[in-house]
């Protein structure tokens, strides 16, 4: 951002910031799970960014800065108001996920690309539900990494968390997400086998 008059800086900011409207809306939708709330959240994010753009430090990643404002706004305004769906329990899912992968995917006589068959077999709605069931701190990291393709450093800046936390949340988030999809696939008969991710206390203990 160049050091011109405040008016021109604001115009420049407006144009630069609006480039990220689509990814911001996408994150907002995944956080709020409601299109109207997502639109409101995005509008509020831009308004805040516009009012406080003096606090933006030129040279920093404006996309990460906007994501941070959006997430903070969501946490402050929306999260407390909304009923949250049942969130998955990581301790139950992780070991079950690893067992399913071991038993269903890594056999010597495994069919060709069962993972592709799995991804083709689950519905968009099931993926959305699985994503919605992730605790928010995992969901944000997963969206920023897998959909927005932000680097670990950019995610750390966007969410104000250490790099190591980004890594651990992304790894856990992916396992939680994939574990739920495997369970959907098992229930639909795409995968066989007795392991039940959502209720398998024996596996978790």
């Amino acid at each position, binding site marked *: 951002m160049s050091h011109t008059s*405040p008016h021109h800086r604001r115009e420049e900011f407006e144009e630069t910031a609006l480039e990220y409207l689509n990814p911001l809306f996408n994150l907002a939708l995944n956080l709020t799970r409601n299109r109207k709330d997502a639109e409101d959240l995005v509008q509020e994010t831009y308004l805040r960014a*516009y009012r406080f753009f003096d606090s933006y430090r030129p040279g920093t990643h404006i996309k990460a800065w906007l994501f941070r404002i959006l997430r903070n706004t969501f946490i402050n305004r929306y999260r407390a108001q909304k009923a949250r769906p049942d969130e998955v329990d990581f301790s139950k899912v992780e070991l079950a996920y690893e067992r399913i992968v071991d038993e269903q995917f*890594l056999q010597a006589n495994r069919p060709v690309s069962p993972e592709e068959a799995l991804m083709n077999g689950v519905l968009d709605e099931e993926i959305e539900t699985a994503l919605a069931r992730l605790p928010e701190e995992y969901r944000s990291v997963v969206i920023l990494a897998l959909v927005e393709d932000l680097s670990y450093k950019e995610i750390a800046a966007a969410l104000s968390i250490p790099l190591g936390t980004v*890594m651990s949340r992304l790894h856990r988030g992916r396992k939680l997400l994939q574990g739920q*999809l495997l369970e959907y696939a098992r229930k639909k008969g795409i995968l066989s086998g007795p392991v039940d991710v959502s209720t398998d206390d024996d596996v978790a203990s």
Partner: protein
Amino acid sequence: MNCSAFKRALYHFQADELPAAERAVFQEHLNACAPCAALLEVEEGLLRGLKARLTPAPLPPGLETRVREQMRQAGRSSRPRLDWIRRPWFVAMAASMLLAVLVIPSRNIEMSSLVRVTRVVTVVDFDCDNAGRSFEQQRQCARPKHLNALKLDEGGYWQVSLDHEIGRKLITGRGLRGTRMRVEGLLYEGIRTLQVDRAEEVGLETVGLIFSGL
């Protein structure tokens, strides 16, 4: 590397976040262990599938227009007020009023404890510094109500009197935040306020030269 360590490093490998040396060890295990190679293949397939299916939602029609209009309205409503509030005379007046509030109830103390001092201090944004913000953040802070103070090495702050031009520039200079200065003047001990007669950046030219650029 054994299979457990391989599993722990797998997602780091996929994200290309492993240091070169660890990546080489990982690759070595991958070449020698068929189950781990199969596991990587599965995880890559799942990751590809997830990325392909987690596509961005389409933008609602009219949202961009609404956001633009909202920002323009905010600009129109806030610009005159902000321009006015940021003018130096307003800041100086606000600082004077703040100082008056401090001085009036303490006049007796002020007159009984006036001493001449010379001290090396750090110029800080009083509010930001209290909030633990870095000097870089303090220099970026443009809030008109945030005024500078002098931070003492042993802890605590001195306010700066507006009686002299140097004081006014010390109070409002955003670029001075974080600067080490040797200040000289009359200290009103009771209200911890310094009337600065002279100030120079430590190790550099006199503050008169520094201020000429403000």
